[in-house]
């Protein structure tokens, strides 16, 4: 057990190191210069630009050689410093991200977990139930094939424009400032519903289809046939099939949970929802090295943590992993 997790941990640390290095490299491959982009927005005189350019380059630590920048980056990272945002100068990146994260979690965690739970149970129930299989599952196929933003736009149009029952932009009413009151909470929930619904529906379709196919496969497995031959009721046969069919779905869930930190980029853009996805788009458009790095760092940590959690979950639900832990195959 110790050896298994020790080895896993080593792999995770290695992956983290590599991923963060790539994360640091990628923005720097972009053509252009963040300081110039920033200064070009403020219409300044030529000599003022020169002075400002020198000042900001030093302020962002872009004046030292590239290898030095890399070392400085790791050094700062271990001190919990992700740098200063260029786009939202002079706010630190940590603060900008922390402001966006709660919206992400609030939007995506319920969408992913609820769609996973509902989709799996519905899919398992629909499999081999003739009328459901023939009527509702095609709907599932359509849902899962729907692009998030298209469904988002559609919902925004129907419920926001035509019926006018839900707002279509922002995380809360533009007339309010974030504070703790019923008015604010109601406003947040009101704005949350449409982006949530668009994410939930698309993911629900995917989980339901996946589960239905897995269950049909498991119901044809030998152990299911044996249970039937011994007269086990349909409920028990299905329960056992579900237990086996859920394993690949857990992996899928882990991957989904990992990208919570990434936000749902297109959905957040459609609904102007101030999550990380929205932030990433703004950061890229403004060549904000530090904000891009920060956002992707969150994604990396999220994916790794989720995978680690799933490694543990697998050990609990699938005895075969437990046996493998002592062997080299783990």
């Amino acid at each position: 057990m110790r050896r298994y997790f020790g080895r896993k941990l080593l792999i995770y640390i290695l992956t983290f190191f590599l991923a963060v290095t790539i994360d640091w490299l990628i923005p720097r491959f972009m053509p252009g210069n963040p300081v110039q982009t920033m200064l070009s927005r403020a219409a300044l005189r030529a000599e003022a630009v020169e002075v400002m350019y020198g000042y900001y380059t030093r302020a962002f630590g872009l004046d030292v050689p590239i290898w030095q920048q890399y070392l400085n980056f790791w050094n700062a990272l271990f001190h919990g410093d992700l740098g200063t945002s260029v786009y939202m100068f002079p706010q630190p990146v940590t603060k900008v991200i922390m402001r966006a994260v709660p919206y992400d979690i609030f939007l995506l965690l319920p969408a992913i977990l609820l769609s996973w739970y509902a989709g799996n149970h519905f899919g398992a129930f629909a499999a081999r139930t003739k009328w459901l299989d023939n009527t509702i599952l095609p709907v599932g196929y359509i849902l899962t094939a729907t692009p998030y933003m298209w469904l988002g736009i559609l919902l925004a149009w129907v419920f926001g424009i035509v019926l006018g029952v839900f707002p279509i932009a922002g995380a809360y009413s533009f007339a309010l400032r974030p504070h703790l009151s019923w008015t604010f909470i109601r406003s947040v929930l009101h704005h949350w519903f449409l982006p949530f619904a668009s994410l939930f529906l698309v993911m629900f379709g995917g989980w339901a289809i996946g589960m239905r196919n897995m269950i049909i496969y498991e119901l044809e497995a030998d152990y299911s046939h044996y249970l039937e031959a011994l007269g086990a009721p349909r409920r028990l046969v299905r329960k056992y099939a579900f237990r086996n069919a859920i394993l690949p779905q857990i992996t899928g869930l882990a991957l989904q949970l990992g990208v919570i930190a990434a936000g749902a980029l297109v959905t957040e853009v459609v609904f102007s929802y101030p999550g990380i996805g929205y932030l990433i788009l703004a950061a890229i458009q403004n060549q904000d090295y530090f904000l891009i790095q920060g956002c992707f760092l969150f994604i990396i940590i999220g994916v790794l943590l989720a995978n680690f959690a799933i490694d543990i979950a697998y050990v609990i639900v699938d005895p075969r992993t437990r046996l493998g832990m002592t062997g080299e195959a783990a």
Partner: protein
Amino acid sequence: MSLQVENLTVYYQTLRGDVQALESATFTVADGEIMGLAGESGCGKTTLAHSLIRLTPPMRFVEGRVELDDEELPVWDMERMNDFRFKKISIIPQYAMNAMNPTRKIGKMTSELLESRKVDFKATLPELKRRLNLVELSHDVLNMYPIELSGGMKQRMVMVLSTLMNPSLLIADEVTSALDVSSQKAVVEMLVGFRDRGFVKSLIVITHDISILYQIADSIMIMYAGQLAEKASTEVIIHAPRHPYTKLLIASLPKVGVKYSEKRLTGIPGSPPLLLDPPIGCRFRERCPVAFEKCLDVPPFIEIEKDHFVACWKEFEKNAQA
């Protein structure tokens, strides 16, 4: 009479039409009888077994009547059969090695199965442990997952599980196929032991290995291409078969004391017909050395001597002359 099967006909549905895998099977298995069911691959042995306990699509029930202990088995009705399965009729499947759920401990699975059949697991546990002793399995297996057992152990566990409710009829489908010769012997002796102890009343042992049947079976039934060919006591089938197919089948078995480097072992020329569109009449006709025009009609499965059933026109003629 423990099991009585009349005119049982079961087809497989395919896109190209019905595969006539089992055609009007009529036979009986007596109380305490171990009946071997032999024949080559694809002759309908497993179809016969499955249609007695778990008749699911693509299998299609065409006609027939099955009685077990004077009660009719609704083999065509998956739901109603549940009352009989496990308690009256049970099976050790061909796939015994994969028969148990990989993600449940064996004991837990057993208890959930029993509770779902309204049987008290706690009350059954001592008997279960006694039977584990009989097949030389430690009680620890109940706390293990199937992957922690070897193939032979899984096989024995399934044997114990399938017979736990003392069914009247047990079908053992190819139980020895995946085992080495010494384990084969142990397994078949356990089956006989189960019968002798009264765990099961009668047994149908399906195999293509006639030598196994010679050791344990009271009677042997031979099938060919979905039709019953011959049924008689083991001694008669081995030493005095009447059906031409049985004769050739027995003749093609190697014999002790014969050097096959000097004398080539003979087989049966030709191959079995496709059952999607089987030949009319006796299906062995085309490979049969004694076939004649009468064989264009399907021969009935008739008792020509006491407990000796044959489906062959030639033998009927001989019998009439004698």
